């Protein structure tokens, strides 16, 4: 049985110098900006300083409201769930589509100046090997409870852009262990990583695995 190697990670934010003062500028920059920016503005807040319970889950929606004071746009951008898109280019396309629609509906929004600029930020991720390995799935719950938030981010969020099927590392590992663990793998994969914090995610993961260990998942 291949052991599960626990890794840890940390993000560091990098300013790109790209900025937008109007919605049209945001649209233009979005079309060409580094995909890492799109990733950061959806997921970076989980590990970087940001309020855990924000009004909007992504920075584009937040700017639409706080910068442009445009509630309809903020709501339409805010509901975009990045987990529904196979890759960042699809997510980029959806963002541009939503903005285009709004621009078509209101000419004034195209040139209206926001009260604060949108600054495009990307991030670098540093991945560390903790030298801790889980050899048996029965031990997973015990280890998860003690994992750092960086480890949760790496194995549950970052994994989506590393693994072939955009899955999390825990489910990938369990799937490889045979049919016995397939229900648990599926249950973990069904956990919604959006609209939550890393500590909540860790608690939910621990709960699912504990329940499985006690009575299995039908």
């Amino acid at each position: 049985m291949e052991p599960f190697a626990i890794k840890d990670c940390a993000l560091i934010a990098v300013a790109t110098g790209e900025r937008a003062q109007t919605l049209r500028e945001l649209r233009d920059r979005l079309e060409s900006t580094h995909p890492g920016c799109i990733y950061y503005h959806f997921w970076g807040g989980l590990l970087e300083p940001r309020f855990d319970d924000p009004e909007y889950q992504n920075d584009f929606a937040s700017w639409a409201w706080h910068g442009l004071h445009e509630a309809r746009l903020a709501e339409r951008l805010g509901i975009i769930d990045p987990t529904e898109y196979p890759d960042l280019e699809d997510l980029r396309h959806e963002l541009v589509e939503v903005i285009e629609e709004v621009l078509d509906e209101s000419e004034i929004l195209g040139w209206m100046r926001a009260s604060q600029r949108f600054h495009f930020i990307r991030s670098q991720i540093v991945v560390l090997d903790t030298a801790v390995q889980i050899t048996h799935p029965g031990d997973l719950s015990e280890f998860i409870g003690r994992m750092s938030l960086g480890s949760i981010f790496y194995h549950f969020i970052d994994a989506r852009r590393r693994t072939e099927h955009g899955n999390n590392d825990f489910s990938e590992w369990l799937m490889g262990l045979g049919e016995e663990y397939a229900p648990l793998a599926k249950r973990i994969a069904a956990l919604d990583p959006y609209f939550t914090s890393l500590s909540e995610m860790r608690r939910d993961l621990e709960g699912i695995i504990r329940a499985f260990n006690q009575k299995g998942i039908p």
Partner: protein
Amino acid sequence: MTTLLEQYAEIVGKAVIEHLRQLAKPLEGKKVVHINSTREGGGVAEILHRLIPLKEELGLRAVWEIITGEAEFYQCTKNFHNALQGNVVDIPAHLLDVYESTVRENAGRLGECLEQADMVFIHDPQPAPLLSHFPKRKGKWIWRCHIDVSRPYRQVWKYLRRFVIEYDASIWSLSAFAQPLPHPLYLIAPSIDPLSDKNRDLQPNEMDAAYTQWKLDPDRPILTQISRFDRFKDPLGVVQAYRLIKEYVPAQLVLAGGGASDDPEGEEVFREVKAAAGDDPDIHLLLLPPDAHVTVNALQRASDIVLQKSIREGFGLTVTEAMWKGKPVIGGNTGGIRLQVINHHTGFLASTPEGAALRIRYLLKHRDKLEEMGSKAKQFVRENFLLTRHLREYLTLMLAVLYGAGDRIEL
């Protein structure tokens, strides 16, 4: 004896410290030098006083050196500071000569230490040209800018840019401050130190002393703004907001800030605020010395609500300090205050004295909300704006700069 890391673990939890240890492991034994221009006074020195021993405890060979100069050197660098914050300041050529020659002399003195370092952090403009004196440097050099450079006076930024451009990377407090440069522009928000005199828990007798010394009534609401008497901090707006609520609530207002002796405009603003306060015995204008950390701590803790009604603000560490003491903050909708004050959660953003007054009345009427927001504010600071997060980002940056340039660095 308890180590520093153990003391922080009691505040932020063991997992956070363990994470720091993980990040520091690949950096063990690396020589990391920080250079600024003073050991005492100012936020940079305050942070370095703690960061250096923490890095040492984590196994790095951390060194802190300062550059020194004569009066004209500091005159020049003070001009830099003002110009980078947007003031139009034309600096005479002879001051620039003094600046460059002073840094050259310091480079000679610090020679071997800097040449052999694995990583050098140069803080703010004062020591910026040092790098040009080390063509055979071994390590990576990072320029750390603590100043709000969102709208610099272009002439001065253009002059300094030619020194900064050569660095391997730079660090900025907010994305709005970052200036385009041909190297990675890292973003690291500032932090507060929960163990410092300004932020540590105070004993009841220390609080009693503050009430007595400043003639404050602990049984009536206290509103406080801690900041320089500067128009950008809008102290007159704060007095106006207080007047709007005074009829309904028997509140006391404290406006406390640094002395204004070397700042002609500060004196003028102070006079204006004094005139606006009139003879109201419940308005307390306090001119505090720069080392009045315990007093600031006590005033923030004594407050029911803390205000930071700035019109323009860098990061706003006074907001962080107040939130750490479990106080909701009513802050101006500007700069780093926006990152910290989350409407209806950790306080309120206000754009006018009327807006601030409205929120003060609301919070004083709904004590349960005030407590709830104060508690959320403290938790928010615990997770995001304490020194341990700052250190985590420094370590991450060091790993990123030393071990790779791509989006993903696997160690």
